């Protein structure tokens, strides 16, 4: 069966040069008695972009939030199995969740800049983590904004409220805010779903540029986007009891052109066909 893919630039980055940054083994997650994730196992390579795709409600975001333990914020959440960052189990009781989140930053679906100036937004993390020196902070702010491809647009209005920026700028500000604390992994939860196509493309370019230095995991419902930006892709689905399972995981090119699982193929062709 041939699948007619409309993928502009299929990434062919050799992912086998990377090391395993995050490892998930047999992870299950429960909200009270409801099982949201069932026995997920996958290894996320460093210096690559991994996309998590699948129909809505299949647990993509829940899986993403497993990596920085944001699920902990919901009461009644229980996690089974093992999740490792650089070989260290992050659900170990001796782990400092705050330190974990410094290393595993997150960008949300809806841009959520703090109600303060652009500078303060970016400097917020470093300040809280103990950087006091004004000059040093300014340097971090400039560097992070440049990295996030926002510097040129906001350098004249650093004192303005972050909420006054456009949606796309706000999202890049949020990315700069994450970059400022120098994470190793960046989690992105449908970062473009609230943005227009132009802003979306800017964020995608930015992600490709960041991929050299950061491990990036993106949840997206947009399969063209997954195909455009990711190196590896994971396809998730709901089982009959609505628990999310991992159906297929592999290099993006392979997943989209030659899926091994019938369900993946159905989903992809259904969307494109």
């Amino acid at each position, binding site marked *: 069966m041939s699948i007619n893919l409309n993928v502009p630039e299929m990434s062919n980055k050799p*992912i086998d040069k990377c090391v395993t940054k995050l490892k998930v083994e047999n992870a299950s997650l429960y909200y009270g008695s409801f099982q949201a994730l069932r026995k997920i196992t996958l290894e996320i390579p*460093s210096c690559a972009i991994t996309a998590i795709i699948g129909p809505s409600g299949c647990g993509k975001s829940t899986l993403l939030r497993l990596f920085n333990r944001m699920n902990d914020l919901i009461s009644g959440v229980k996690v089974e199995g093992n999740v490792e960052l650089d070989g260290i189990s992050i659900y170990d009781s001796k782990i400092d969740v705050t330190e974990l989140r410094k290393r595993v930053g997150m960008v949300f679906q809806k841009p959520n800049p703090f109600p303060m100036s652009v500078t303060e937004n970016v400097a917020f993390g470093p300040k809280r983590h103990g950087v006091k020196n004004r000059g040093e902070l300014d340097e971090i702010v400039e560097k992070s904004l440049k990295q996030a491809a926002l510097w040129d647009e906001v350098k004249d209005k650093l004192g303005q409220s972050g909420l006054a920026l456009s949606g796309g700028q706000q999202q890049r500000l949020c990315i700069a805010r994450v970059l400022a604390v120098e994470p190793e992994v960046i989690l992105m939860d449908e970062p473009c779903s609230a943005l227009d196509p132009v802003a979306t493309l800017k964020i995608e370019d930015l992600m490709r540029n960041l991929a050299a230095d950061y491990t990036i995991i993106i949840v997206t419902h947009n399969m063209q986007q997954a195909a455009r930006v990711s190196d590896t892709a994971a396809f998730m689905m709901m089982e009959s009891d609505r628990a999310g399972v991992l159906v297929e995981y592999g290099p993006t090119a392979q997943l989209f052109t030659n899926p091994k699982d019938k369900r993946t193929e159905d989903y992809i062709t259904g969307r494109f066909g």
Partner: protein
Amino acid sequence: MTQTTNPSSPTAAEVPSRGLKRRLRLGERVIEGWIFLAGLLAIVVLLGIIFILLKEGLPVFANTNPWDFLFGTHWYPNADPSVFGIAPFLVSTLMITLISTIIAVPVGVACAAYLSEVAPPKVAETVKPIIEILAGIPSVMMGFIGLALLSPFVQSLFHLNTGLCGLTAAIMLSLMSLPIIVSVSEDALHAVPREFKEASYALGATKWETIWHVCIPAALSGIAAAIMLGVGRAIGETMTVLMVAGNALAVPASPVDPMTTMTAAIANSIGNAVRGGVQYQAIFAIGLILFILTLGVNIIAERVLERQKRKFSR
């Protein structure tokens, strides 16, 4: 997926290992400890009140048995031996509360219905702050108004020896319990889903028929809670009844008799009571009964309100 290490890319060992070990953050732990203690304080104060009332109030029952205390019709703290019967206060409290509720409920519910269903938005926006102001007027002020303005009026209307009587107090109290009745009833009416009203209009009902047959029945439990909260307020109110109810110590036979409620009895006698003495204990026992009464009323109100909230939340 197979992993091969390549000399040019970083390996796990080379990644700048920023530890994940738990950090102490002593300052934050201390602050969070205080936050937790502050969170507990509401329980501590409530339990403290219960404890104090029991500790200071219960000993009186070694002197007067509970039956005589509750239903005795004489309060003679200075007699020898002293007599502590709080029936006059109980009856006064119940009588004044009942009358004030009978006055306040229809007015309050009607006002709420007007504000939520009938009033033009501009009128509602003007009236609501005025009702909020009413809630803010101190009870001593209401007592003073009752004393200076209402009691002469009641006196001449019913040809009484004094206008300082249960009825005057009840009228002032009804005014004071209006704000809570109006606001809670209005919330309840607001919570009635629009579909209900639209269905009623679609059947050709008039606005009033919709209010009367749809909105008020649907909001009934919320309105009931509002009434209970108003009752709770009336039972616990002190200054107004102290100033205008007349402070007579006999069991009142009619609403226009001067009377003393439980709250007023406490306020009147506490200054003269020897600390730790029998009268002191008796006063705390009145406090205990008052506390139990208001607690009961509030718990019922809260239960009803919870049920109302669940009814329309999907």
